[in-house]
Every structure is written in C-alpha cells, then in structure tokens.
C-alpha cells in the first residue's frame, strides 16, 4: 500500500493554475525527487501537501487517512514534515528551535530537550546547540531546518531545496544525509535543482512543468525522456502531458 496518494490535485491563484490535476503515489521508504523548471509548481505542491495552501480540487491521503482539508499543524502531527526553501529558523537557540516540534507532541520540556539533542546529534550538529541561527552559515542553517523537520518524527518528509545555495563541497557532504534520513524511517520527497544530486540519490523522479506532471520514472528514464528535455528547454508540446 502506498504511503501518500495524491489525486487530481489542483490549485489556482487568480487566473494562474499553479498545480493542474496532479496525481501520484509514493510508497513507504521511497526517496522521490521532484524536479521541473522554475515556476513549475513544485513548492506549491509542498504547500498543498503540508496544508499551508488549501487546494481547489483533488484529494491527499496519507496512509489510510484522508488529509485534504486538515489544518497544517494537524498534518504535521499526522506525519508530514517539511522544510522551507528559504530557511526560516525561529529567533531562539538551535536546540530550542528543534525543541519546538518536539513540544508540540509531548509537553515535557526536559524530554523535548533530550529529543532535540538526539536529533542534533544524528544530524552531526550537536556542537551548535547553543548558537543562534542568525550567526550561522547557510549550510548550517539548512541542517537546522532539516533537524527541526526530523524532530516531528515524520512518516513523510518534504525537503525543499536543502542543497540549493551550498558550495560543491557542502553538497557532497550533505548528499548522504538524505539516505540517512530515510534510514531513520522517513519516506522522502525532495525538490532539487542540483541535478547530479537528484540522479544520485533518488529512486524515482517526478517531473513537473507548468503545474502538471509530465514524466515519472527512474533517474535514467527521466533524463532520456523527450518531454522532459523540451520542458527544460522551454519548448511547448501539447502531447507532453501524462
């Protein structure tokens, strides 16, 4: 049985159809890459899955529970964790940042401190526990963003460009992380522009263009797909839609 089932998902902003009749499924334990040119609607999909935006049509099912109209915090509690493309740390220490999601699940501050510290350790940034995010590098802040999402103990983790803006060394350092997170029990969908990373890590790739899913398959299948190439080169082809 699939963990996530998205059916006919649609979102309009005024006259613009940001996500158009999107359907896909994700199996437990998968690592799925979500790619597409700028403005394809990838982040909107994440916003719809995490409940930040409400969809105009379609349904989202997590496990056997329909979550289409659930409030964002309830979706998080149901098991959807996410990071934001632009990192959004709270104005508190790194440890406290990671304690926030833990405290949404268990009111004990002492326990949350332990949980948060364990997550930081797993992410290899326990030395930053007392630092303020504002004083850290982008790579470090992105790790905090992921740590915070991991502290929600997600069944499904949505990573929005956690590698963007990092230098090649940092990308190389962070790549194994995605697999590691899956080994922690999270199924992963990640948006990424660093193609090498997508090809290396993902088991399946979804390609979006202009709000619609145009291709889906293994990394090698996708790279050889004509529609995908055209989408990236900006050519339009009415037959290129699933």
């Amino acid at each position: 049985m699939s963990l996530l089932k998205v059916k006919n998902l649609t979102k309009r902003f005024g006259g613009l159809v940001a996500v158009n009749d999107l359907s896909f499924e994700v199996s437990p334990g998968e690592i799925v890459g979500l790619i597409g040119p700028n403005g394809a609607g990838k982040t909107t999909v994440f916003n719809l899955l995490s409940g930040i935006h409400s969809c105009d049509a379609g349904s989202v099912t997590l496990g056997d529970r329909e979550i289409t109209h659930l409030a964002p915090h309830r979706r998080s509690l149901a098991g959807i964790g996410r990071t934001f493309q632009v990192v959004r740390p709270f104005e508190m220490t790194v440890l406290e940042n990671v304690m926030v999601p833990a405290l949404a699940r268990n009111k004990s501050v002492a326990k949350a401190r332990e949980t948060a510290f364990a997550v930081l350790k797993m992410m290899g940034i326990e030395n930053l526990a007392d630092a303020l995010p504002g004083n850290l590098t982008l790579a470090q802040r992105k790790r905090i963003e992921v740590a915070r999402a991991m502290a929600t103990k997600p069944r499904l983790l949505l990573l929005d460009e956690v590698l963007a803006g990092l230098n090649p060394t940092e990308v190389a350092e962070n790549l194994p992380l995605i697999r590691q997170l899956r080994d922690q029990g999270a199924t992963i969908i990640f948006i990424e522009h660093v193609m090498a990373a997508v090809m290396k890590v993902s088991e399946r790739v979804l390609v979006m263009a202009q709000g619609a899913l145009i291709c889906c398959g293994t990394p090698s299948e996708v790279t050889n797909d004509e529609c995908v190439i055209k989408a990236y080169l900006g050519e339009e082809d009415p037959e290129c839609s699933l």
Partner: protein
Amino acid sequence: MKPKHLRTFGAAIFILLLLVPVFFKSTFVLHIYTLIFFYIALTAAWNIPAFGGQLSLGHASFFGIGAYTAAILYVKYGVSPWFGLLIAVGVSLLGGVILSLPLIRLRGPFFTLASIAFTEVLRMVAIDWRSMTNGSVGINIPFKPGFKNMTFTSGEPFYYLFLATAVIVVLLTYRIRNSALGFHLRAAASDDEAARALGVNTSLAQFLALMWSAGLTGVLGVFYVFYNYVMEPNTAFSLDLFSLQPALNGIIGGMGTVWGPVIGAVLMTPLGEFLRFYLSTIQQGLHYVVYGLVLILTVKFIPGGILSILEPLISRKKKDRDKPKEKEERS
C-alpha cells in the same frame, strides 16, 4: 537558568520589600510601592500574549470587567469580594474568549485595533447600563473595614497583597515562558507559518496566552477597585491607565521577556506618578506629551527595551561561569 547569585539577589530584595512597611509609615511611600507592584503584575500579565507577538492595547477591558463584576456583586448583592474574585475571573475569561474570536482571523496591528475597539465598546456599555453600573457616576465601595470585605484601615494589607500578586504573576510568566506553551508562543511570534508546519497549533497557543492574561488582569481589577474605593467607566476602561501604561512599561523594559515588565514598571510608575502630580499642576496633558515622546524615542533607539542593554552584561558573566560546567555535563 538564571545564575544563582541573581536568584539570591532577588530573594534579598523580596525580604527587604517585606520589611518596607515596618520602617516606612508614610502612606505616600506605601502607596507608590503598592502602585509599582500593581503595575509589575499588570504589565507581566499583559506581556503573556506578547510572548506570542500579540500586542494588545485593550487590557483595560479585562481590568474593567474584573473591577465592575466584583464591585457590583459586593455593593448590590453583598457578595464578599474574595468570592466575587472568582466570578470576576470567570467573566474576564469570557471577555478573553470574545476578544480571541477576532484573534482567530486578525494578527498584528489589526488585533491591536480590535482590542482597542473592544475596550471602547465595554466603556460605552458601562456608561449606558445605568441600572447595573450606575452609569458615568460610577460605583463607590462603602468603607466597612474587615478582611471579608477586602477593606482595610491601613495601606499595609494591600501593600502585601499587591506584592504577593506581583511575585506570583511574574513567577507564573516565567513558568509559562519556559513551558511548552512558551516555546509555541515564541515560535509563533517568530514565524507563525513555520511553527504550524512543525505541528504547533499557534491559534490555540495565542488563545491560551490571552486567557491567562485576561484572567490575571481581571484579578488585578478586583484588587484595584477595593484599594481605590471608586470605579467609573472612564477610569475602569481607561486606554491610558490600563491599556497603554502596561504596554509602555513592557516596551520600555523589554516586550516578550520575563524581566522586561518588572524593569519597565519599576522605572515608569514613579516617573508616571511624578509627572502626573507635578506636570499636571503646570499644564494638563503635559505628562502624556512626555509619555508620547518616551514611547517614540524608546522605539527608535532601544527597540528591545532596557533589558536588551542589560542582558549582554549579565549573560557574559553567566557564560564565563557556566561554560566549563556545561562541557562536563555533555561529555
């Protein structure tokens, strides 16, 4: 988490304050101290929603509700104010529920406006509902000394009552800030959407914060009316005295921190009394001109409040001392 010597320092001040009425018999001195304690408690209570970034300029509503409820129950129905206190808190909480309805939709400046409007509505109701509130004439508490009537022949009982209230409210805000609710509020203040995406029900957190704040402010209204014997709509629901003043104390001390309200109230109350007494004799309204200027200048030059200047001094010492210990714990 405060360094130990600060705690000792606090305890020492508390003991000294307990002794003040023993050595100073002047009613004026006691009155000023009492007023400082009152404003510490009021500002600290006002500050709870501010943990979550909500700026209320409508706390006079909860204050007035509390004051009126207890006063009406006592004067009209002979209910002891101590029992009336419970009912007053209940009604203040109800007021909190009503004000939190717009809070579901409104954040930031619009919540602030709604809170002002809410107070204005209550003020008008208090003026109009003559059969209950005696209209704009107000309610006088008859002078019948006795513990049961919360009426005393000297200022000392109220001195201790307000001192105890201030200490309790400040400790309570300390507890709240360091609890799950406190974390949720701070997260919501910092980035509401991100907090929700992490599973925090920010609306619930803001609601709870407002309820705590409303209930405590209601209690203060009850104590204040029995301390002052009189209550009329324009005072009870006064924007200046009970909405703006705690906000001013808060911003000057450090909004959204535990100790900011204490610092703000300790500094501003005597200054406010001085200005009210001396400047008003020179020129009516002059002291609010000073307030307006203080507000604008504080926001411009020390937006984090006085605490933001003091904190680096304190925490530097704290870090030097705590560092070796922390490392031991971790390794």
